[in-house]
Structure formats: C-alpha cells, structure tokens
C-alpha cells in the first residue's frame, strides 16, 4: 500500500537542542494514526515540518510519493494542517474564510461553495454565518478551522490537539467526521494528550520522545511488547516515556 507520509532521518535543531533527532516514520494511506508524546517531545515540530512551515535541518519528507523539498506545491495540495491554535482571520465571515482557503487550494468555485455550505451546516456554524470570526468561541473557531481543512478534500489531514476547547457534543461530532473521513480511504494523523482518544480511534499509535520514535504499533502490539495485554495505553505511555527520561 502507498505511504501517505514517509519521513526519513528527519532532524531539526533549535540552538544546541535537538527538537527532532533522526526521526523515521511511515504511515500508510487510509490509516488513522495517533502521534503521542510528552510536552516538548517534538510532535508539533515534526508536524510543522511536514506541513512545510519549518525547514528541516536534515532528512526527507514524502507525501503520497511527492517530496516536500523538491515538489512542495504538489505535496501540500494533498495535505491539510490544523494546528492547536486555529489559523483564522478575525474580521472575515465564515463563508469568506472558506472561499479564501478554497482559493488557495485552487478548488473550483461552485464545488467550494457547495462544500462550504455543507460543512457549516454539519458543524453547526450555519446560524452564525453572518458574524465575524472574532465573535466566535474557541470551540466554534476550532470547528471552522476544521471546515477549512476539509474544504479542499485533502488525502491527508494532520491535526495538532484538535479537541482542545470543544464541548462534549462538538468533540463527538469532530471524532465522527474524522472516523468517516478515514473510512472513505483518506488518512488522518493526530496528536493528543488524551490517551482514550488515541486508544479508541487510532488504528496505529506512535510514541515520540526527545525527537525520536520510541515505540510504534497497534494497541495490541504495544501491549504485547510490554508483556501485559491488560495494560491501558496511558500506563504504556507513562512506562515508555519515564524509562526514556
């Protein structure tokens, strides 16, 4: 199966400190992948390099076979990146924002308009379509950013802590949308500090610490590795990261 994301020997340094140190990662298409790690482990730095926001010091990133360094436009066309702090314009209205995002990804206008209306309705934002984004709550902003990610129908969506600020209903809605998206053959990579989400939703889990991948596999594989099939992901995570520390 084709790899949605293939990272080889990726490294990034800030001053003397390695944020990412020789990271290797291969995520197959159609997979829901959870990238876990303690604070400062290098998750966000890795994702920002994959999204083309940070220049790696070394290594290679391939998105569906397109090298991010050599063919950034094609690689980015297949990707949506949603950071924990939504990338929005406070003085635009939701439809104006989605029109702009669709334009950046060169989506035909009629298709984009229909999709934008559908997304706003699904995400319960249609009733506030006339308001400026600045008046939105954090949860509403998260949902609109998610709509911005979905509007160009990327094959790979990368989400950094996507459930921050969402109430229970909105969190369920987002989780269902992501699960459905994977069922349609697309790929999702998500970071989270909530282990239950990774445990329930992810088909594969990677644990990163000090800029390197220290464990990877399905939950069952990780449990088998620890020799205790009853262990929760939280216990496994704490064991692995504490040993590393």
């Amino acid at each position, binding site marked *: 199966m084709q790899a949605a994301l293939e990272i080889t020997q990726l490294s990034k340094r800030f001053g003397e400190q390695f944020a990412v140190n020789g990271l290797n990662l291969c995520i197959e298409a159609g997979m829901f992948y959870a990238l876990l790690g303690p604070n400062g482990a290098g998750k966000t730095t890795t994702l920002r390099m994959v999204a083309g926001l940070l220049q790696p010091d070394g290594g290679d990133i391939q998105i569906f076979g397109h090298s991010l360094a050599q063919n950034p436009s094609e690689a*980015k066309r297949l990707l949506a990146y949603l950071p924990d702090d939504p990338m929005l*314009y406070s003085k*635009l209205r939701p439809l104006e924002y989605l029109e702009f995002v669709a334009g950046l990804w060169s*989506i035909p206008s009629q298709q984009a308009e229909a999709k934008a209306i559908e997304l706003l309705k699904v995400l319960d934002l249609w009733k506030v379509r006339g308001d400026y984004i600045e*008046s939105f709550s954090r949860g509403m902003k998260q949902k609109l950013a998610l709509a911005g990610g979905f509007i160009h129908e990327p094959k790979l969506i990368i989400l950094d802590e996507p459930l921050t600020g969402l109430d229970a209903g909105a969190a369920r809605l987002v989780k269902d949308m992501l699960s459905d998206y994977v069922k349609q053959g697309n790929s999702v990579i998500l970071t989270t500090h909530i282990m239950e989400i990774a445990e329930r939703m992810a088909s594969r889990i990677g644990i990163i610490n000090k800029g390197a991948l220290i464990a990877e596999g399905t939950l069952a594989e990780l449990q088998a590795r620890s020799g205790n099939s009853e262990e929760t992901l939280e216990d496994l995570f704490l064991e692995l990261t504490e040993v590393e520390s």
Partner: protein
Amino acid sequence: MKTGTLPWLVRHELRLWWREASTKGLSKRFIIISGGFSVLLLGWLWFTLGTVREVLPKVLPPTVGFWLAVAVWAFAFLFALREAMAQSSTAIFDRGDLDLLIASPMPSKAIFASRLLGIAIGTFLSFSLFVIPYSIAVLLFGFYALLGIYPALISISLIATSLGMILSLWLTRILGAKRARSLVDFLSIIVSSVFVLLSQLPNLLRIYQFQLPKMLLEWPVFSQTSPLWLPSRALYFDPAAVVFSLVFSTALLWLTSEFLNRWFLSSTQQSVVEKTKAPKTFAPFSSNLNALLLKKEWKLILRNPYLLSRTFLPILLLIPLTLASLGGTRMIALVSLLTMGTVLIGSQFATALTIMSVSAEEAPDLLKSSPISGVRIRQFKLLAALIPSWLLVTPLFVFMGFQKMPLILPVLVFLGATTCTVILRLWNTRPIPLAQLMGRKRENLPSADIWLSTGEVIANFAWLTAAFFVPTSNWPFGGIPLAIIALIGVASYFRSRVIGTSIGF
C-alpha cells in the same frame, strides 16, 4: 505600603508598565531617540532663542510671547487629549488584568482612580521627549520662569485624562461599547487632525493675508488680560495661573473618579466584539486566486479601525497642500512642493496598509501550508497596499496635469517612494497580533524595530529630498538621495535574508 489601597495599586500598575518597557528594550530605544532629539533641539534652541529672547515674557508677555504661550498650551492640550482618549478607550475595553481587579475585594473607586492616574502619568510622560531638552535649554539660558511648563503640563494631563474618560464613558453609555470604541478612536483622529491643521494655520494665514490675531484682540474676551488665557499663563510661572491650573485639574480628576466609577465598571462589562446580522445573500464564490488575495486583504483592512486612523490623516494633509497650491506659489516651487506632498502622503498610507496586510497577517501558517507560492502571495500583498495609496494621490496628479505642470518625473518619484516604502516593510517585517494594532502594547508594533524605523526615516527623508530636486531635473542634488535609497534597499534585502519574515522567505 498597605496592600489593597490606591497607592499600592498605582505602584503595581507602574511596575507592570516598567517591566514591559524595560524587557521590550523600550528604555534603550527611548534613551537613543530622546538623546538624538535633545541634541537636535538644543542646537535649534541655541540659534533661535537668542533672537527671540527680547520678546519672551517677564510677567505678562508682549504679543508674540503671549500668543506663543497660548499656542503651546493649545497644542499640548490637543496632544494630551488625543493621548488620553486613546488610553481611556484601552482602559475601558481591553480586559488585561481588569477581571482580576474587579473580582477582588478592592473598592471600585480605587480601581478606577488607579486607571485614571495611570492614564494621566502616561500622558504626562509622553511629553518628556520634548520637555527634557526644553528644560535643559531653559536652564542654560536662565529663563527659569519657563519651567512653569511642568505645572502646566501636569494640569493639562489631568484635565485631558478626565475629559477623555468622561467622553469615553458617556459615549459607551449612550451608544454601546462597540460603537463607542469606534467613535472614540475616530474622535482621537479628529483631534490629531485638528493638531495637524493648526500647525498649518500660520502658513495658510500668510498665504491668504488673514489678520486673525488682531481681529481677536479687538474683542475684550480675547484680550491678553482675559481669564480665558489664565491656564496658558502657567507656562511662564504666573503664580495665580499655576495655583488655579493645579487646583482645577486635580479637582476635576477627583470628581471624575468619585462620581463615574460605577459607569466605568458597567462599561468594562460590555463586549466590544461585533455581532453582525447575517446578510440575506452571499456573493458567489470566486475561483480567481489573484482577486481572492486582493479581496481578502482589502476586506480585512476596511473592517479594522486602525485603517481609519491611518487614512484620515493623509487625506487631511491633502487640504493644506491643495490650499498652498492655489495660493499663488511659483510653478517650479509648486511642482516640488506637490511631489513632496504626494511622496509624504503616499508613503505614510502605504506603510499603514503594509502593516495591516503583511505584519498583521493573522494566519501566516495557513498561507505557508497552502500550495500557492510565497512569492505570489507577497506580490499581491504588496499590490493590496500600493493600489489604494496610488488611488489616494491620483487626484493631485490629475490636478497637476490640468495645471500643465510636468508630470513624468513627479509620478516616477512617487511610484518609487511608495514601492520602496512597502518593500522595506515586507523585507524587514515581523508578525504582530492584530489586536495590538489598537491595543495597549503599541510599542510591540513593527515600528519598534529600531533598524527598520531608522532605515525608513532615512529613506523617507531621501525620497522627500529627491522629490524636491528631481522634478526640476536638478540631478546633482537629486542623485545623492537616490544613491542613499539604493544603499538602504541593498542593506534591507540582505538583512531580510538573515532575519526572515512572517510570511516566509
């Protein structure tokens, strides 16, 4: 110091102000700028004061000294009022630590009074850039009576703070927070504009040979002995004027804090976030990315009050320029004057728009993660700033065309100046949160980059010099500034390769 009291709270406010100022490098910058200013001002005073010392006052000044004092008081008051209105708006509408203070058991009067004193101190300190070198000169020349500027400025700061706050609170009560904030910002621009226009008044009066002071003096209420001018007499230490100014201004501030603290508290609880009605129809989506890029920038610019303040001033500056051009000046001097005016206005406006479109880009990561090239995005951000600046000044060029003035060189200089201004910003800009454009932390604006500010000031002066000489084909004098501009451009380009920008090099 007893905790929970007004002096304790004022000390806390001042400590926060100082921490922020010192950690952001403001003090160093302040010392450099005020030092340079002092040297320039002292030099200027050295030459000019000697010639005017005969007309300076002993007790009651002769006409020139008297009107000078009135003018200084009026200008200082307008400046202080503008400053106080802007700070009042911030004090009411920017949450900051307000929720913490209001939730604490501190009396609301103390919270409001500390905010008022903070504004008054800030307003008074904003004069220090001018007052410090002035005081040195006054001491050097032995005009000790002119140290009356200190009590005068203290009273001006207190009065302006009270009036600025009263106005802001009153407007919030009758209009609501959102409209009041916009109106207060707008009024502070109007005050700035009056300030600018008054500075042009002597020129206009000379052009139209208008004898305003003599007319005024014929009315008893405007005579030099009238109580109307009492506050301005404090400037040269008239004892009655000093006592009156200080007592009146302190009483006004005390009354404001005593009777309006409940208004203040209720105003701070209102939201300034705009709730708009859903439009009945939306324009259909467009696939034209170039149009979308421009449309997005202009929508964001038009919907932000920062633009208003930066647009209104250049347009008002056009008024004295147009009047001057109709005032019978020689053609060759007029071409130079108008070219300089277009360069000044266009550059100022283009800079403001570039700050909005480039520095205040709210979602640089969205742009960088999109498949569109950074070069294309930057090009359209430049155009979004340049096109309105060009349109703003076009009527002046049309006017010059009708007057059969030479146009090619002035237009070239104008296009060069505006493009250069925008590119300097683009190459050296850093991201700033949009809220800070109107907020309390204005020292964090991109202009706080000392190298960029210095480069811009030199480039602007060079373009103004070029605008004066180039339209008359005076190449030896016009060429030097153009060479300086080229050097600044090269230095900026290489600096941009080192520091990078918020929208991705």
